[in-house]
Structure formats: C-alpha cells, structure tokens
C-alpha cells in the first residue's frame, strides 16, 4: 500500500521547529512511503501540486502533516476527491498547533512531529473508502406558537411557497399583544397592529400554504433536519372555523358561566364563547371541560341558536395528526414569573393587586371592565396606584436577569390610565430603570412630564399587606439609603420578571433541545445566532429564547424563516456525513445496552430480534454506542477500533 506524506512547512511556522530534512530522511526509510515537502499546502499552488502528484503517483493513502484538521481537512479531502481518490483516504497530522507552536526545543519538536506522522501513516493504512450520501429534504415547516414571532415566520415562509403548519395551544391567534389595548412606545392598538398579519395568515394571497391548528400541541417529534415527522394532538374546538360566520348567536343561550382565563380570570365567559371580543379566528370554541355535555347532559342550546348548518360540531373529537416537515420553529412565547414564589407578596391577591398582564386587560376595551379604568371586582376608580417594577427580577434567589421590556410597558400603563382617570395618582417603584431604544425613551419622557405620575427607586419590597378597613394596600419597601418606607395605594400593579411560557420544558424534552440556566431554550450563539437552536433544523423565535418585545420577537421570526429558506432549498438534497456508527448484526447479541446510550435515539431494536439498527440519518457519529457495546458489534466509521489502535501502537513504538 503506497502512502504519500506531504510535509507542509507553513512558511517558518513549522519549519522553524521541525527539521524537514530529518523528517524526509526518516520517512523515506519506510517501504512504500514517499515524502514531499511544500511551503504552503493550503495555497492555490500547494493544492495544485498536491492534485498533480495524486494524479501522477496514484498513492493508495495520503498523510498531510500540517496544521489542525479542524482548519483544512475539508479542503484537502476535496482535493483528494477531485483527483479521483476517496476523500477519506486522508489523515491529517497536526504538527503546527500541537507541535511547532508549543514546543520550544527544535529537537524535541522534530521527534514529536515524527512520532505523530508515523502514527498517521499507521492509521491511514486502515482507512476505508466512505461516501457522502445525499437524501431528499422536505422544505416545509412546522411553527409552534401563533404569536408575532410564529406568525411573521409562517407568513414569510408561505409567501416563498413553503407549506407551513402553525400549531397553537390556545383557541386564539396573535399571542399576548392582541390582548393589549395599546403598545409602547407609540401607543398603537395591539390588535390593530397585528390585524394585517393575522388577516394575511388566515385569508391572504398565500394563506392556502398555511394550515392553522388551534387548541393543538406538538406531542412527538422524530427525524432530523429535512425529514421531521411531527405528531400534533388537536383537541376539539367543536366549531368549524371555516363554516362559522362569527355572529355569536350561540353564546347567550349557553347556561354555563366560568371565569375567563383570557381575561386572567377577571371576567366571565360561557362554555361556548370567544376568548375575547375580536379574537381571531372569528369563531367561538366550546370549552370541553365546562360544557354540560361533558357532564353527560344532553344540552344543545348553542346548536339550536346557530344560523349556519353544521358550524357547531358537537361530535368533534380529539385527533392525533401527523405532519412532515423539514424544519421546526419554536415560538411559544413568554409568561410572567409566579409572584407566589416571593414571600413579600404572600398576601398579594385580588381585588386590589394585579399583574401588569391583568392590568392590560382592565384597560382593554374588550376586557372585563370594557376598558373603563376601575377595580373590576368592586367597580371603584382607584385614587392611588402603585406600580412595582422588577418583581422577582435582579434577584439572585429568583430571576437574576433584567427582562428589559417591563419598564416601557409599565410606563405605558400609567400613561394610559392617567389619561382615563385625571384624578388618580400613580407611583412607580423600580430597582433599575431600563428603556433603551430610539423610540422607547419617549414613553418615559411623557411620563416624567405628567404631574399625576411619580417614580422612586427601591432596593427591596419588605411586605405588601391588604388593609381591609380602607380597602387598600400597604407596601413597606426599602430605599437605596437603607431606610424603610410605607406606601398606601388603592391598587397595586406588579411587573414580574418575564420567563418562558409554561410547558416549555416538556416541549424541550420532546424536541431534545437544551435549556439554559434560566429555563429558556438555548440558542446556537447568543450574539450572532440567537434564532438557531443547537439542533439542526430547529429554530427559535421570541420569548422561548429570551425575554422579547414585539420587535425582537418579529425579527427573530423573520430570522428563523431566513434559516429555513436558505437551509432547505427545493431541489437541493441534504448531505449525510458518512462518519456514522453501524451494527454488525452477526455479532450483535441483542443485549439492548446501546439504544439508551445514544443521545439521538438513533438506535432501535427491531421486533424480530435480529439485532440493533442504527438510523444513519439520526446518528451524529459520536461513537458512544461503539464504546458501550460489549460484543464489539458496532463500528464507528472513520474512528474504528483498528484505526485508533494502529495509531496508538505507532505512537508508543
């Protein structure tokens, strides 16, 4: 077997420490080994010389002693391939990063380089021809979550001709912002801002490319980039959203009244209802648990009131749907930190104490007070309102980070409420004020000039006690100078830290995605690749990755769409790296040790007990199963036991 060794001097980088003549002398003593030296093998001239030599001398294997394989292995493999040699007949020996740059003594460096080259020659003799396989890729996508991030992504992909399945847990599209009356910093109406996007997704020119699944959840995902199979549990809506004309005739006859979770439980709704007025899709849903039929009663008052035949489907039932997709975008959004975890807010409860999300609903025209600024439970107009920022935030015991968007939202709330109730005074308490951005500061400027609104810094809230006699709340807090102060308010609004929406850990488990230390999904790179997950073909947008405002969520949704459009191109196939594990079924005893060891669930045991099988598309080539197999039945292509032992033997000679 003829082995050609190329010794790259890398200018002086290698040649200054590793003696070329000694290396050549030593290597040419080995039968069937030829040694060539070059100044810069990675240069165009270097690669041409290599290609020419491969064509002329037709070696069986090639060793390149140069820099790190992490740098140029792919380049030189390509040269081998173009010269008609199998690209995997190459072994790179790292005599720059691992030898010349780290060894002060030239004699020692030369000896070490020779040792490594000998090992490279011994290893490469065992190299096997491997082929990069290509597989077809599905270019469609599944988007999980129908907030601004998910919908921007879905619309963009649909516009490019991709089929998109949007899986939304609730019966309503638009995420959190459609529940807000106005948005900071420009006081736009939340529903109006998203209306064009929602309308495009539902009825626009490319809407036929989008399948909307509401009251649905992703329950199982198998496969890999280009070939995911996503199982979705669609719970019954009992209303055909396409047939329904949205008249709402069905709602008043319904005899059931329950707290409306879409108003944070502040108002009531019927078992058949819209989540809130104007919610899209413009079709009510029946709450499966609340409907009298669930208790065995034979009620059909809603059906009788409905003017459209078969718009209400009382026999609608849960379905397990299967969708194929090349990419998955997670856009499940955010939630508020649970204030029950904070002892100082132990006694904080309604009426009187609300989260900013609840306060948004109190101000919303389609909310529990029809947009009137009142305490929903007793109808009083509060004279004093305390708005507490940084609840649970900037606290190493709870949420160490700053969510970055609550200050702007909090000032928006006092600005809006102050306009509606000129006699009410608002007092903001904050740990830190954060309002970056070219427009965001305007809200703060407005609030600063408003005589109804004051603000003050605090370091810690000691307690919040309801004063039943006065029907108000008393807050004891510490100021930066260490002194304690009491504040009384008719209404308290808490702005808790922003955390991932509930259920994200389950979804992360289903998708096998890593979570960061705060419980968000871990991004590929926090600065430059925050919309990519660490799993190929799975992308992140909005509150599942970090606290996000609408701008950030929309941008990330668009970024995720960009990754899908460039990563999955119709007509282009995906390459499968041949560095994979494979089971020799004649040696497999069927012991079942390997399947749970695989981090990618790539190994299955077929029912016929004919031995383990590795799915080469799911396998990532780590070789953990190979090391675990007690029978030595699994081979790691390009990292076989024979190759590694040959390398080791030569290193120790």
């Amino acid at each position: 077997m003829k082995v050609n060794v190329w010794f790259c001097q890398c200018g002086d980088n290698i040649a200054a420490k590793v003696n070329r003549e000694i290396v050549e002398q030593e290597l040419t003593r080995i039968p069937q080994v030829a040694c060539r030296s070059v100044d810069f093998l990675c240069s165009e001239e270097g690669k041409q010389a290599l290609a020419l030599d491969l064509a002329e001398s037709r070696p069986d294997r090639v060793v390149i002693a140069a820099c790190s394989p992490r740098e140029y292995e792919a380049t030189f493999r390509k040269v081998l391939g173009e010269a008609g040699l199998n690209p995997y007949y190459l072994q790179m020996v790292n005599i720059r990063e691992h030898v010349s740059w780290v060894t002060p003594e030239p004699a020692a460096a030369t000896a070490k380089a020779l040792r490594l080259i000998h090992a490279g020659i011994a290893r490469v003799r065992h190299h096997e021809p491997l082929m990069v396989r290509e597989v077809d890729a599905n270019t469609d996508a599944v988007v999980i979550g129908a907030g601004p991030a998910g919908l921007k992504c879905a619309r963009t992909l649909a516009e490019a001709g991709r089929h998109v399945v949007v899986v939304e847990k609730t019966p309503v599209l638009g995420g959190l912002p459609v529940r807000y009356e106005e948005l900071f910093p420009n006081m736009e109406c939340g529903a109006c801002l998203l209306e064009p996007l929602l309308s495009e997704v539902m009825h626009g020119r490319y809407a036929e490319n989008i399948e909307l699944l509401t009251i649905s959840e992703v329950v199982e995902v198998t496969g890999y980039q280009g070939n995911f199979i996503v199982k979705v549990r669609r719970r019954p809506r009992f209303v055909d959203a396409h047939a329904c004309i949205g008249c709402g005739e069905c709602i008043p006859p319904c005899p059931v009244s329950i707290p409306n979770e879409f108003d944070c439980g502040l108002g009531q709704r019927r078992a058949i209802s819209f989540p809130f007025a104007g919610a899209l899709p413009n079709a009510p849903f029946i709450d499966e648990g609340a409907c009298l039929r669930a208790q065995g009663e034979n009620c059909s008052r809603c059906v009788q009131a409905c003017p459209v035949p078969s718009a209400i489907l009382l026999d609608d039932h849960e379905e397990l749907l299967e969708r194929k997709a090349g990419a998955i975008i997670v856009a499940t959004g955010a939630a508020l930190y649970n204030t029950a975890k904070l002892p100082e807010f132990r006694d904080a409860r309604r009426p009187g104490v609300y989260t900013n999300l609840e306060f948004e609903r109190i101000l919303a025209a389609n909310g529990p007070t029809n947009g009137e600024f009142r305490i929903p439970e007793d109808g009083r107009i509060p004279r004093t309102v305390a708005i507490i920022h940084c609840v649970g935030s900037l606290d190493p015991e709870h949420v160490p980070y700053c969510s970055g968007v609550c200050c702007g939202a909090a000032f928006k709330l006092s600005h809006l409420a102050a306009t509606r109730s000129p006699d009410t005074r608002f007092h903001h308490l904050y740990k830190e004020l954060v309002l970056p951005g070219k427009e965001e500061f305007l809200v703060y400027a407005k609030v600063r000039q408003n005589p109804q609104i004051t603000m003050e810094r605090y370091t810690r809230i000691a307690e919040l006690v309801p004063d039943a006699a006065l029907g108000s709340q008393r807050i004891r807090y510490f100021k930066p100078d260490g002194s304690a102060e009491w504040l009384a308010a008719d209404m308290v609004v808490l702005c808790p830290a922003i955390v991932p929406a509930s259920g994200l850990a389950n979804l992360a488990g289903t998708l096998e995605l890593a979570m960061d230390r705060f419980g968000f999904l871990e991004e590929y790179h926090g600065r430059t690749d925050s919309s990519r997950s660490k799993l190929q073909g799975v992308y992140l947008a909005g509150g599942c990755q970090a606290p996000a405002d609408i701008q950030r969520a929309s941008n990330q949704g668009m970024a995720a769409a960009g990754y899908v459009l460039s990563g999955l191109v119709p007509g282009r196939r995906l390459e499968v790296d041949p560095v994979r594990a494979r089971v020799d079924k004649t040696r497999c005893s069927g012991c079942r040790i390997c399947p749970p060891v695989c981090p990618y669930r790539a190994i299955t045991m077929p029912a016929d007990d004919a031995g383990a099988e590795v799915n080469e598309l799911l396998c990532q080539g780590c070789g953990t199963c190979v090391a675990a197999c007690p029978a030595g039945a699994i081979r790691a292509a390009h990292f076989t036991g024979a190759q590694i032992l040959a390398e080791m033997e030569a290193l120790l000679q």
Partner: protein
Amino acid sequence: MTLEQADPAIAARPRFEPRIIGFLCNWCSYAGADKAGSAQLFYPPNVSVIRVMCSGRVEPQFVLGAFRRGADGVLILACHPGDCHYKEGTYRATQRHRMMLRLLRQFGIEEARCRFDYVSAAEGEKFARVLTEMVETVRELGPLGL
C-alpha cells in the same frame, strides 16, 4: 534541597520522559489544544494526541491497550458537562473513567496515571496547564513497567 541537588549522580542521570496518550474530543478539547497552539503556549512534548469525535468514544480497551503497549499515562479530555457537542458523551466518558480507575487499582496501576478533565475550546491555557501537570505527575510516578 531536592534529591538532584543533593546527589550529583542522580542529577547526571537522564531524566525520565514519560510517554502519555491523550484522547481529545474533536469539538472542545482538541479545539482547546489548537487554541493553546495559536497562543503559542509551551508545554512538554510527552503527550501524543489521538483525536476522537467525542470523549464518549473512548473505550476502556483503549486505555488498557495504551498501558499494555507501554504508555506511562493516559489523559482523557472532554467538553464541560452541558457543553458536549453530542449532549451526553461527556457523562458517559466520566462514568467510564470512574469505572476504569477501579479496574486500574486492581491491576496495581496508580489512579493518577489515568486522568480525566474538561477542556473547552476556549481553554488553551487550561490545556497547557493540564498537560504540564500530567507530565510532571507521571514523571514523579516513574515508568509504569508492567
């Protein structure tokens, strides 16, 4: 006063140069070694690196095989827990290393001859330090001489 200073005969004796095999995972530790190279951090040449895709690929037979073939020490370097490119390979490698130590004890091989550590792609300095420490430790233990 060291032994070498006390006895000129010992000082004149050639210093024992241990032979050590280092298994490095491709994504973190090998990249960390490259980083030490780029930073031109000097360390002793006694460790010969074998690159594997993941520390989880390192079979116990590789470690035993290295000692049998004359290695005085074996070093396994992996990604930090949670940073593993293959998610769990690091855990498998730590588990196997713990098991290896028990086995080596039974063979009368000192535990210090088989070291496991974490080196990230950014930790060029740690790589150079771990290698230097390992060479010094094994040098003090002397040749394995199975």
